[in-house]
């Protein structure tokens, strides 16, 4: 591995303890104005039995120590800001800084969800503008911004299917899900009380229409489909699929995780989807934040509008906005208040920055980047489904497995080359899957380096398999012992050393 390919890498500074280990009594970082009302005795106004003595174990540190602690922790992370983060199905694109600035504006971040709508028109206008843009991009008729993440949007959508079918007389019992789907799809269907039946993929990596026809009975509530699917392949027969589902009175649910391949090119509403959820943290650049927050708006066709969660935004002819709660067929609330407003602000800022031409260019660049990587790795890594792909490509470790090198090893070795790994071992229909989604945010040089790195690792797998199997070699920590972490979980810091973590002693009783 020469210097030319060794690039972005998180810092490897060792030794930053836990914040609790830096604590010493008497230090503090907070500042409050002096109390300007009469002091009260907590024991008197609350009752002695309701007052605690102290929060045992809480840290006592100064401001500079806090700054250094979290700064040091941050340097151990690899983010999109560090370098290419081709985590398939996660759309790790650039998070524009202006989005962060506007979401924190006084007058937006400071607003309370229970202030009168007459005094929240600015917030409501932002939500309305986002609703309109997302409806146009998806080609749907009505929308809710309430769900807090993609999986939450899925639940909202499936509950709407249930409510709609119940209103028609029979909620049905089954949800069909292709075998290439995200785990959230079956988990969601189960949460809504549905049984799940998998639909198998054909050799082209697409839904097998004959299998679908057989499974699609009048007991099936919905087909939950991802398009392009998790292989990055567009379901070319999508309108036929929609027809099969609709002919039996079912609902076509589209998981919009992969909208970054479609925006401006085709619209779910135009290819037969009845419901689509979006991941604003994927397609619309709101930051992934180390695991969230996300936002999972759900857009629907007209016939499902009555079932949208409470409340829905309503615009008067004069352009005044208000929340409408009078919706007898609604599934109810799926979250308090109106959703992750701060994320809605960021997503709208992203759309405004791009405009129609910009959104289309994003889609084209995302697909171009993915195909460029595909071309660069063809013949080096096995491509189990050779159909054309859009924004992501799934290779497998089949060739490297002959040398005992598996997808996880290749992923770990990529870290040594300065990249975040791809998604490992998903989708499940590809043994040893390597799921690569570069997004539009990578320049040609970065893509060339990435291709070069994966080609070099393929060579290493043949010549020095152990080098790959023991990777990473240059990170702050090496491979971690997940087996012990699972067998003897240690899930919190405790002051006394605890050599074996059986059932922990109960915490200090409430004092």
């Amino acid at each position, binding site marked *: 591995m020469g210097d030319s390919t060794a690039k972005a890498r998180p810092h490897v500074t060792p030794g930053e303890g836990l914040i609790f280990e830096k604590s010493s009594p008497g230090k503090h970082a907070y500042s409050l104005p002096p109390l300007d009302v009469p002091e009260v005795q907590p024991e008197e106004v609350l009752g002695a039995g309701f007052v605690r003595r102290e929060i045992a174990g809480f840290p006592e540190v100064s401001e500079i120590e806090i700054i250094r602690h979290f700064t040091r922790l941050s340097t151990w992370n690899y983010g999109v800001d560090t370098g290419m983060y081709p985590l398939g199905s996660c759309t790790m694109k650039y998070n524009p800084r202006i989005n962060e600035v506007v979401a924190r*504006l006084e007058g937006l971040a400071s607003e309370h969800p229970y202030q009168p709508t007459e005094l929240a028109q600015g917030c409501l206008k932002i939500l309305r503008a986002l609703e309109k843009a997302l409806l146009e991009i998806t080609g749907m008729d009505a929308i809710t911004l309430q769900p807090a993440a993609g999986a939450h949007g899925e639940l909202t959508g499936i509950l709407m299917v249930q409510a709609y079918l119940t209103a028609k007389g029979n909620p049905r019992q089954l949800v069909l899900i292709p075998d290439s789907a995200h785990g959230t799809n079956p988990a969601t269907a189960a949460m809504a009380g549905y049984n799940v039946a998998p639909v198998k993929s054909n050799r082209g990596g697409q839904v097998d229409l004959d299998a679908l026809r057989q499974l699609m009975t009048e007991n099936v509530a919905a087909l939950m489909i991802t398009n392009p699917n998790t292989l990055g392949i567009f379901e070319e027969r999508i309108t036929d699929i929609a027809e099969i589902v609709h002919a039996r009175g079912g609902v076509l649910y589209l998981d919009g995780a992969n909208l970054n391949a479609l925006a401006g090119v085709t619209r779910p509403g135009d290819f037969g989807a009845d419901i689509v959820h979006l991941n604003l943290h994927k397609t619309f650049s709101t930051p992934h934040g180390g695991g969230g927050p996300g936002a999972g708006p759900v857009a629907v066709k007209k016939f499902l509008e009555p079932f949208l969660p409470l409340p829905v935004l309503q615009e008067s002819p004069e352009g005044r906005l208000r929340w409408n709660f009078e919706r007898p067929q609604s599934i109810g609330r799926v979250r308090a208040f109106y959703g992750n407003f701060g994320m809605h602000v960021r997503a709208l800022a992203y759309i405004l920055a791009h405009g129609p031409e910009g959104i289309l260019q994003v889609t084209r660049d995302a697909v171009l980047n993915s195909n460029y990587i595909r071309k660069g790795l063809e013949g080096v890594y096995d491509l189990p489904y050779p159909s054309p792909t859009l924004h992501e490509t799934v290779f497998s470790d089949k060739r490297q497995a002959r040398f005992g090198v598996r997808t996880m090893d290749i992923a770990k070795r990529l870290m040594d080359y300065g990249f975040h790994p791809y998604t490992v071992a998903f989708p499940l229909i590809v043994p040893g899957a390597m799921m690569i989604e570069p997004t539009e945010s990578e320049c040609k040089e970065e893509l060339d380096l990435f291709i070069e790195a994966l080609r070099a690792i393929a060579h290493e797998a043949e010549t020095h398999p152990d080098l790959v199997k023991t990777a990473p070699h240059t990170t702050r920590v090496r491979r971690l012992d997940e087996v012990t972490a699972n067998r003897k979980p240690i899930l919190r810091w405790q002051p006394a050393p605890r050599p074996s973590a059986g059932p922990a002693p109960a915490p200090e009783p409430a004092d």
Partner: protein
Amino acid sequence: MRYLPKSDAERKAMLERIGCASVEELFAAIPGAIRLRRPLAIPGPLSEPEIVDFFQARARENASGYLRFLGAGVYSHFRPVVVDALASRGEFFTAYTPYQPEISQGTLQAIFEFQTLICQLTGQEIANASLYDGSTALPESVIMAVRISDRARVLVARSLHPEYRQVLSTYARGQGLQIEELPYAASGQVDREALARQLDDRTAAVAIQSPNFFGCVEDVAALSRFCHEHNALLICAINEPVSLGLLRPPAEADIVALEGQALGLPPSYGGPYVGVLATKERFVRSMPGRLAGQTTDSEGRRGFVLTLATREQHIRREKATSNICTNQALCALMTTIFMTVYGKQGMRALAEQNLAKAHYAASELAKVPGARIRFSAPFFNEFVLQLACPAEALQQRLAEQKILAGIALERFYPELKQSLLVCVTETHARADLDRFVAAVRAACAEAPRGKA
């Protein structure tokens, strides 16, 4: 487009390498009949200054400059500037879920610290890495209790946040749960006699909130004894965790479903916030949500990983403990920094200021003719003001003076007419409180008297 890092020449070179004449060829798999043949009808593109202008204009259409006494699950506290300064580091906010621990130790260690702080704050043994918010943490906790107890009946306090209860009933339909309401007593706390009547051996759990929606502090220890006599679990929702700087932690509850917004997140018109579940170690495998655990690397160094992942949807699929995937990690990080800044002394000092200011305001308001404090139970920073005039009239009158007086409870509780839920925190200076009281006094004097 300024975010896109390619020149047209580079795009052309890449297409040539792929072997395509135009980018259109890459989309050949999408049938022509479903292609969008026109530009999207969306606004933009806007330059950076135009974007700032747009959102500043929207901000001016809101309630800037208003004095607010609004709580009800969303609390304004002083947010130390280091919270945003540190959470704005790109390595934190542009990373994703730490699936690759070797290059995610920053996020993982911060989550481990978050889990620990939540345990210390709540008196529980374990806490997860976060859920969406308090309102969804409640149904997740109920589903968890049902899983543990293998019973389907759940009693939910009417004094628990009304919107949380609405979310619970939405989730309950899919799960086939039997939700029954538990009334509140004249004190504002859970009605213990009703609890004694309603609790039986088919009950999976009792869900309460403390301080509850009216601001009243519940006796968690006593309620827990009641529940345990029937082998039912006690779920305690915590909406205002700053109260735990002073209040006895809900250690006797079996599951704590906490909303962390008050710990360093701005109100932001309802989100993003952060939910979290805390519970006993023996329930860990029934708990939804991610968990960070401590371990060592192949050279013996301490490190952290996501652990017990077989509970989750990406492995167990339809049999998972929940469908949650993306959570609220960055919000959890912000609360971690907030709790660290306030620390052991500061959390207490902060809670004491809230208590003192709320009690000062309450005692001054109680002197106003036509106003009284509705409930007798102890309260932290929120209380119900019972008026002799319609609450809406008073809200209207005060809004004209740029004061948002509180939340009229009749909207959620038809039986609580002429009642206003008032929240006072450390952010209110004494002068603000005096202005508020004077305005209430004036409004009460003018307003037509109602029945109360």
